């Protein structure tokens, strides 16, 4: 529970930073361009601060512990979150797979990354059989090439190693 609260505090602090960015950046624009974002940013920041304080010092603002529909109970983490055990290492691995997938697409494009990703994830994380992984990987490769390249005439990214350029940020 303590860990969850800590995680929630970190999330709130990050969201507060985001809201404040909109407030301060918004102040630099003209009246019509800033009035709405700055107002929403201030209200959001105040709500987040209120939530943070009530999380850290529940005695100060007991009323913010009001749950949905006026319930006095402080809300528990989602049922899903409770059911799924939290493993930091597992999460890091999941996120790493996603980032590796993006990196792979950036470097060698969808055509290579898609089957390798499915094969790698299926074998290493899912411990699925080679045959099942290969079948799914090949099916998805055919789907990507067939659906996007041939049916929709969309040129899928080939990767910078094969001569494609990343668009400007």
């Amino acid at each position, binding site marked *: 529970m303590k860990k969850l609260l800590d995680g929630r505090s970190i999330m709130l602090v990050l969201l507060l930073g985001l809201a404040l960015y909109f407030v301060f950046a918004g102040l630099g624009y003209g009246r019509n361009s800033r009035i*709405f974002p700055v107002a929403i940013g201030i209200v959001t920041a105040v709500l987040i601060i209120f939530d943070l304080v009530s999380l850290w010092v529940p005695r100060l603002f007991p009323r913010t512990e009001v749950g*949905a529909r006026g319930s006095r109970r402080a809300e528990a983490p989602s049922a899903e979150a409770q059911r799924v055990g939290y493993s930091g290492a597992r999460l890091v691995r999941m996120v790493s797979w996603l980032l590796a997938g993006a990196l792979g*697409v950036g470097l060698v494009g969808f055509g290579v990354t898609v089957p390798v*990703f499915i094969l790698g994830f299926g074998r290493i994380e899912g411990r699925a059989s080679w045959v099942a992984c290969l079948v799914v990987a090949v099916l998805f490769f055919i789907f990507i090439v067939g659906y996007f390249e041939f049916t929709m005439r969309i040129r899928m990214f080939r990767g910078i190693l094969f001569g494609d350029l990343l668009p400007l940020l």
Partner: protein
Amino acid sequence: MFDGISVAISALLQPDVLAFIIVGSLIGLVAGVLPGLGNVQAMAVALPFTFGMDRLTAIYFLSAICASATYGGSVPAILINVPGTPASAATTIEGYPMAKRGEANRALAISATASLMGGLVGIGVLVVSIPFVRWLALLFGPPETFMLVLLGLITIAYAIQGNIIRGLAISGIGILLSLIGYASVTGVYRFSFGSKNYLWDGIEQVAFLTGVFGLSEAIQLGMKGRVAGDAEEVALGGFRGTWQGIVDTFRYPLTFIRSSVVGVIVGIAPGVGGSVSNVVAYAMTAQISKDPLIGKGSVEGLVACESSNNATYGGDAIPTLAFGIPGSLAMAILLGGLNLHGVPVGPWVMREHIEIVWVVVFGLLAGTIVSCVGGLLLARWLARITLVPTGLLVPAIVVLILTGAYAIRQNFWDLVVAILSGIFGYFLNRHGFSLLPLIIGFLLGAVAEQAFIQSLHISEGSLSIFFTHPLSLLLFLGVVATGVYPVFRRLVAKGVAQ
């Protein structure tokens, strides 16, 4: 009232549209069968793939997915005691004991028939409400639209499980994220985080939606391990049981009507969906029913569960189509689909795109029929889908999302946005933040700003416009009442206690 019907029907009769409805229904069914997935995730993954379709086909496709997952969720709930979606949680209480008694086919038939009938009631209410809400939508100008978005956000923050303040804060974050990029009202490029090109059109909506809903769920699945439950699988039985199940459903008309009404009402209320109506309708029936088998495989209990959860999405569609305030996450994705295909969300959908409303109606209807009939025929094989290992399911979902996110604009950075949104969505979900206010804020933020600035232009800068227009004032009072109600309720409870 019937404008736009002919357009919707003539599109529906096209063979390719019918094919997409069948494919969409099957996708929804499969997603519903897989525990951890549902219509929201299926629609999020499918959304980018609609990009090449024409507008009406795409909306038919998404509506069919939306309508079909709920029945899909009931199949494993009945056959292996694992609800495929949260909307089938109570179904396990009555469905699985029936299946264990050797009445699996009967239970599946009750589920299919009650789902179909419940779905029809929900859609019927939606159809009946169209003339009224269309008339209401005509009264909406910029100040009313702004107040409506405000009321929608505060109502959702209040209705969702969790802290109201946190719900409002997260909807504020959603609004702020929607303001990134070029503002069409003022012609200024804002909040670019240093990006000179990429964020010109703001955060790509489809990449964000698929990331927050689809990828975050894939991360969750990857964290969880195996998908399926390990309950023993049961034999289905013969055709006689199926026929008996269909007849059984009509033996409890009052239960069916009551549960469908509960489903529709829960659907109309923003932020709550089939998971709530399923439990509420079942609990009501369990209290009223004299059936000794309640809790041990009662037909009446199963009718209540299945008719309510399918009636919900008809109710969900009412605020979504009437005012652009989605009644559920699935409807939020549908709004994303409307946006992607050039239909601006808000009260003007009823006014200017009535054919879209009918497409959603017929799409939900067709999805319900196909999924219930097809689901009944394919139940035996559908239940086996739960045995697909997560190790193959997760990379498949990830690949579909990433390729889909890229394909919309063929921009590599959209793929990165989808991944970052997925991680963001996962952490929000993990730490008790509801995704619905975030998405609604994100979808309606720019609409709200436009309405706000237009109102100020009309009134030459005076905020009084929001209080001098009667409907706007009424909506404002609704905002205040919704905000004050929890405090008032607590004070009353405190007074009573003292």
